[in-house]
């Protein structure tokens, strides 16, 4: 117990225990007789004791290197390595074990993912989180591991390892629609955030310069955010239908009460708040002394704005766009309800049919999209703040 007192990382331990549980007794897959009927839940020990043993041994490997009392680089590396191998093996097992319990005589059979699978994902995340310092300080190892990991997953996909999972079946049944709706989803989200940027930034600049505009704009964008998205779509139907029915210009422009246009209008309104709020705060936070100096040095208002205020507020504005983008990627789901398409289509269809795997087919890509967009924005932020010398520290090298 001495070891634990000295080096106990309770968080890693939690991840480890969750990993052990999901690798053994927690139901990992469900075996359903058909798409809709609930079936039996199976844990890994039941399906393959050998696989379960291998997983637990891999986790124990990580455990030993993590808790052996020494924090050497090599030990850390092995600990991380075992965690990665374990998780790759989990992914492999998911597909492989699904195949072993597949009954070729029942084409209606569906093998779904159960609690254990999601828990193992969570456990992997927790253990990686504990090792984030090590990974961030050893970029080569970090990049190599992730590339190897994704290469393996890609290979599994290519050899059809997951084809017996119901998620894959839903996917292969809906491949064409999946591609169209994904593109739809991204298009709606990007156009909405685009409008949010085009309207929000000038609005926020105006608000930061004029008290009266500020009093009108900020409460408005906050109010918009409180309207539930479903009712917002509903509220937009009557006025838009009216415009489409009575004004030739709008009718010819393709405006209707339902479809993509009202979805984009509503989502653009939602996109406003983070952008307006961040741009406004960013501009207002520029140090008074800096502005006084800029003015006193003889900059015109335009020069002051473009060479002082905007660059200083820029990282904050980017944060607003980033928040908005992630939020709207999620919100676009609701657009499916008014016939605008997007990945929400699968979610609502799945909910209607009680087919959880179809729901997942919509939900998982949305989560992944949001994470990818967030990372891209994060990268852009890092680069721009380095260029602007703001926020992130840059080491000064003496010449």
């Amino acid at each position, binding site marked *: 117990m001495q070891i634990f007192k000295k080096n106990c990382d309770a968080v890693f331990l939690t991840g480890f225990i969750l990993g052990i549980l999901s690798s053994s007794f927690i139901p990992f897959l469900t075996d359903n007789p058909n798409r809709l009927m609930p079936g039996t839940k199976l844990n890994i020990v039941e399906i393959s004791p050998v696989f379960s043993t291998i997983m637990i041994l891999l986790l124990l490997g990580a455990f030993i290197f993590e808790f052996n009392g020494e924090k050497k680089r090599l030990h850390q590396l092995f600990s991380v390595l075992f965690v990665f191998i374990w998780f790759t093996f989990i992914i492999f097992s998911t597909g492989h074990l699904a195949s072993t319990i597949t009954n070729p005589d029942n084409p209606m059979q569906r093998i779904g993912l159960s609690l254990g699978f999601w828990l193992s994902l969570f456990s992997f995340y927790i253990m990686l989180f504990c090792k984030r310092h090590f990974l961030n300080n050893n970029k080569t190892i970090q990049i190599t591991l992730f590339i190897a990991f994704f290469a393996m997953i890609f290979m599994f996909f290519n050899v059809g390892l997951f084809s017996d999972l119901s998620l894959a079946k839903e996917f292969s049944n809906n491949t064409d629609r999946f591609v169209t709706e994904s593109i739809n989803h991204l298009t709606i989200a990007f156009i909405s955030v685009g409008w949010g940027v085009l309207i929000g930034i000038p609005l926020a600049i105006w608000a930061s310069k004029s008290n009266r505009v500020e009093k009108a704009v900020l409460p408005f964008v906050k109010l918009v955010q409180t309207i539930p998205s479903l009712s917002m779509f509903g509220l937009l139907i009557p006025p838009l239908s009216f415009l489409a029915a009575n004004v030739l210009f709008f009718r010819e422009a393709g405006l209707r009460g339902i479809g993509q246009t009202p979805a984009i209008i509503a989502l653009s309104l939602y996109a406003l708040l983070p952008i307006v709020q961040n741009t406004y705060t960013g501009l207002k936070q520029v*140090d008074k002394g800096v502005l006084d*100096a800029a003015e006193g*040095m003889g900059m015109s208002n335009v*020069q002051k704005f473009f060479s*002082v205020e905007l660059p200083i507020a820029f990282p904050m504005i980017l944060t607003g766009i980033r928040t908005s983008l992630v939020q709207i990627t999620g919100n676009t789901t609701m657009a499916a309800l008014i016939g605008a398409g997007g990945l929400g289509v699968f979610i609502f269809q799945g909910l209607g049919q009680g087919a959880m795997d179809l729901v997942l087919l919509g939900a998982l890509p949305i989560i992944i999209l949001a994470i990818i967009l967030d990372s891209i924005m994060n990268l852009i932020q890092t680069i721009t703040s380095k260029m602007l*010398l703001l926020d992130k520290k840059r080491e000064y090298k*003496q010449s």
Partner: protein
Amino acid sequence: MIEFKNVSKRYDNTPAVNDCSFSIPSHKFCVLIGPSGCGKTTMLRTVNRLVIPNEGAVLIDDTNVADIPVTKLRKKIGYVIQTIGLFPHMTVEKNISVVPKLLKWEKNRISKRVDEMLDLVGLEPKQYKKKRTSELSGGEAQRIGVARALASDPPILLMDEPFGAVDPINREILQQSFLKIQRELKKTILFVTHDMDEALKMADIIAIMKNGELIQFNSPLEILSKPENEFVKSFFGTDRIMKRLSMLKAKDYLQEEPENSPKDQPKITITKDFSLKDALSILFEKNVDSAQFITEKETGFLSMPVIREASGDGYVE
């Protein structure tokens, strides 16, 4: 020359500056001093039109500042403030070259000027040029602030409590090095402070303000010996006489040996910066009425009555 002519400024009918008139001769260091809220910063800001007076006018070399286009006016006036206001998204070099760039100087000329300015404020150009402003200490940042204000070689410099936020030791160093710069450059300077010691150390002329009114406008020595009223007197403290003595040099007051003076007077060797206050202290220490002081070049006598006379220019309370 900067001339204030009956300048008044009100904010919502509360007067900040009330009918102030004085003029600062070219190449002089004028310190504007007074308690907080006395309108000294408002006065300073009327010069570069950051504040527009309600009445009266500010003239630079006989031209009303209101008649000069505002950005053109400001580019000719260096401006240093307490919070410094360095641009955080620019390197030291970029900060210093802001005004030259606004004036569309050539690249080479700007880069040469940046080096000169850093040298002038005592910072190694190679080492500091590429630094970020967040890497500077308070004293260094204020030096860069001064360098930035002087970059386009403006004839006038406005300084609003420039050393107010710096710790006492660094403030002393900054004051000394800025005085050195001023002796070299001979700018017309308007300098706002509420630190009286700073005013006495730096100023050629002091303008004392209270409640928006100009109370006294004179050289430090004159103000110390002839304070206009109780306010000025109390503002300079009870050791006002001592302050004046400390600003006078002993070597300027050396006398011939007085008649029938005692034979065994102490002989003290002094430097050229030895003040009357130091001399007085020696007299007290030796418990004598007069003593012989010897500098490198001359020798002479100082006695209590001589010092007393110097202390007040005849002013007796």
